[in-house]
């Protein structure tokens, strides 16, 4: 796993069954909406989220759990790095696919 | 730990020799390669049968001088992706003609069973709950594209394709031989 980023953090993973990118919420569920993700501001908060995230990994709900830097500046909470921002939206070359269409895409 | 038998041999019962103990007279022991290399004469004088425990980094050329004195080999996989253990087993069979048991220990997964068997391994040390998965994986494929070079008698699909027409007896003989190496 990549080294722990500094500053506010959120957790991203892929669902085991369909591989879709998801974000950890405060109550330990996984959402497709990055803006609904839980943000850990302190080491203690991040550690508590990590326990939840890895618990879901151990329960075979998600894989590839990663702590990422959160961009809390704008109107909407989003991953700070372009790679994870891509996961939150979908391919930039197919605007008809991914959560950029709608949070309820595929439902 | 359970033992998965890949080839139908009689598995060796042995004592894994602790580093600070000497073998009892007539005992069947498994000895780490380094210790065997240092104290080999002593071992071969006192014990009944000696097996060697090697890591995947051990080369065939290092092991070969002992091949005529040892009666079984355990190859320890640090990770199941470390394929050197497969080549080591192949060479023991093919280059030396080793007839004793070759056992895979350490990090092995059930889905590797048929690869191990065809590379010259006779047995795998596995956890009890994985034994069934190993046995299922072993029987998964009806035939293989490679002829083994290790004396198991399994011939490639290519050979089987053409032997049936040309020589019925060879095919039958090969089928009978399949999976049964004579562990002398």
């Amino acid at each position, binding site marked *: 796993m990549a080294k722990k980023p500094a500053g506010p953090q959120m957790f991203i993973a*892929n669902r*085991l*069954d*369909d*591989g*879709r*990118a998801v974000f950890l919420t405060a109550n330990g569920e996984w959402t497709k909406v990055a803006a609904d993700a839980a943000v850990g501001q302190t080491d203690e908060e991040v550690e508590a989220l990590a326990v939840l995230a890895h618990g879901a*990994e151990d*329960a*075979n709900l998600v*894989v*590839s759990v990663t702590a990422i830097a959160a961009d809390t500046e704008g109107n909407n909470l989003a991953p*700070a*790095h*372009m*790679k994870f921002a891509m*996961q939150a939206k*979908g*391919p*930039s*070359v*197919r605007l008809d*696919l*991914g959560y950029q269409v709608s949070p309820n895409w595929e439902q | 730990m359970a033992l998965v038998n890949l080839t139908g041999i009689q598995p060796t019962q042995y004592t894994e020799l602790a580093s600070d103990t000497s073998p009892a007279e007539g005992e069947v022991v498994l000895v780490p390669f380094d210790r065997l290399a240092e104290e080999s004469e002593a071992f071969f004088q006192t014990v009944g049968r000696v097996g060697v425990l090697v890591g995947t980094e051990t*080369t065939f050329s290092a092991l070969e001088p002992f091949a005529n004195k040892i009666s079984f080999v355990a190859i320890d996989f640090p990770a*199941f*992706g*470390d*394929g*050197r253990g*497969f*080549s080591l087993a*192949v060479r023991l069979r*093919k*280059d030396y003609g080793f007839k004793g048991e070759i056992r895979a220990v350490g990090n092995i997964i059930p*889905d590797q069973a*048929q*690869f191990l*068997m*065809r*590379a010259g391994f006779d047995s795998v040390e596995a956890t009890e709950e994985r034994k069934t*998965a190993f046995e*299922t*994986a072993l029987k*998964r*494929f*009806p*035939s*293989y*594209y*490679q*002829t083994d*070079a290790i004396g198991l008698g399994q*011939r*490639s*699909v*290519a*050979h089987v*394709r*053409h032997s049936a027409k040309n020589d019925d007896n060879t095919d039958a003989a090969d089928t009978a031989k399949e999976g049964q190496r004579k562990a002398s």
Partner: protein
Amino acid sequence: MYAYDTYDHAIVNARVEEFRDQVERRMKGELTEEEFRPLRLMNGLYLQLHAYMLRVAIPYGTLSSNQMRRLAHIARRYDKGYAHFTTRQNVQYNWPKLSETPDILQELADVEMHAIQTSGNCIRNTTTDQFAGAAADEVLDPRPYAELIRQWSTFHPEFSFLPRKFKIAITGADEDRAAVKWHDIGLVVKQSDTGEIGFEVLAGGGMGRTPVIGKVIRDFLPVSDLLSYLEAMLRVYNEQGRRDNKYKARIKILVDAMGADEYARQVEAEWAKIKDQPLDVPEEEVARIKAFFTPPPLPVLDNDVPTVNAFADKNFLFKAWVSNNTGAHKVPGHVHVTISLKPHGGIPGDATDAQMDLVADLADKYSLSEVRVSHEQNLILPHVAKKDLPALWEALDAAGLGSANAGLLTDIIACPGLDYCSLANARSIPLAQKLTERFDDVKRLMDIGPLKIKISGCINSCGHHHAGHIGILGVDRKGEENYQLLLGGSGAEDASKAAILGPGFDEGGIIDAIEKVVAVYLGEREDGEEFLPAYRRLGADVFKEAVYGAR
């Protein structure tokens, strides 16, 4: 084409059942992700940014129309209505569900296809010349030997857990269209003075972060010894290739460290021990496989077709397409046709289910039901009568498949990049789209002539940037996409490594830089001189000066 017999079917079907079992064990938690990962990879299943990605092998780039229809069906039923053709003659689906992949594999097995060993540290899909069996310049058809290697490498007992992935390419023409010198093992089919068939053997080529061009380790290997020799080559690598650092684990590093001569010596020594064991297949098996690749019964036709000429005189785009996208066939009056998957502004290598279905129908109608896939991410109809070209082009063009840019600047290789790939550092596709829009003029493209641009979104080099006449490497510079410009690479018989020209650019900057590079070439070229020879003659400095200004 090769057709499975009961043995092939049984093996591939068993593999599907094995994977179904593995997926079930994973879903139930009996396998951890760490244990499952190598198993799914050996079935071509990756986890990417948005979803799983399934990579399906198109062995040596050959497809029947029925297989192509099945690929379209899978795209429609299990994916999002499209697929992506790759630089290693594979096809990728970007959105499959883990629980559905066993069903997809069964659909493939039913039409004699699979995803076996399309990833993982094992021997991958053997690739070859997309025009094999069709091109006029071919010396020998490489496909029978590629099929031999496919079978030999499938579930090899000893070489399924190598230090790193292992890629073999084979060609049978003087013009190398399979980039054999860039492969772990490259094979060139040859005929000896006495008429014996064999191979020139190269080893240790590869791209990635350390680009190396393969070296010849044997001038002539008789075909009857092919598999035992490969066995010796792989054994030396499996035993001695580095396993402590995945970036140094490819065979190119081993061959470089011990020297090609020493590697060759060890291979020969090992081969001497095993060559008489029954590792090689019987002669009858080679004959059996070869029989599937006998030249098709095409009638000899007139090379000059007045109706086609008349159509071309009225339609410049058709004329350009014939000029750029068709090539000389063994049989007079015929051509092989490259269907460009590089529409200007489009995604290189992507095809929709409808386009795949159309290509299958056109293959039935015009190309003996055969389709090929090239490492340049295009589709090929290998056996087309010249008289059929107008009708074929009109059908293709109506479906957005009529681009006349094969081999030209906009026939860009691009990896999926950061739009899909979890390894990528930068996007590749948008750059290809903007470049093709900038150069959206077929007359200008034809004036520029053959020019291969290859874009990778990270150092793993899936977009072959090291081998691009113009190579582009995307990097992540402090969280921003940045693109390095490389010049002078070649993936052909005159293989060379592209060299970085200077500091990197943002997306707009790299496109401007390429315009400047092209302008220098147009200004400096001698009569009929193509880009690559001109670059080699001129050297990098004149390009550097134009791009970065005098320093």
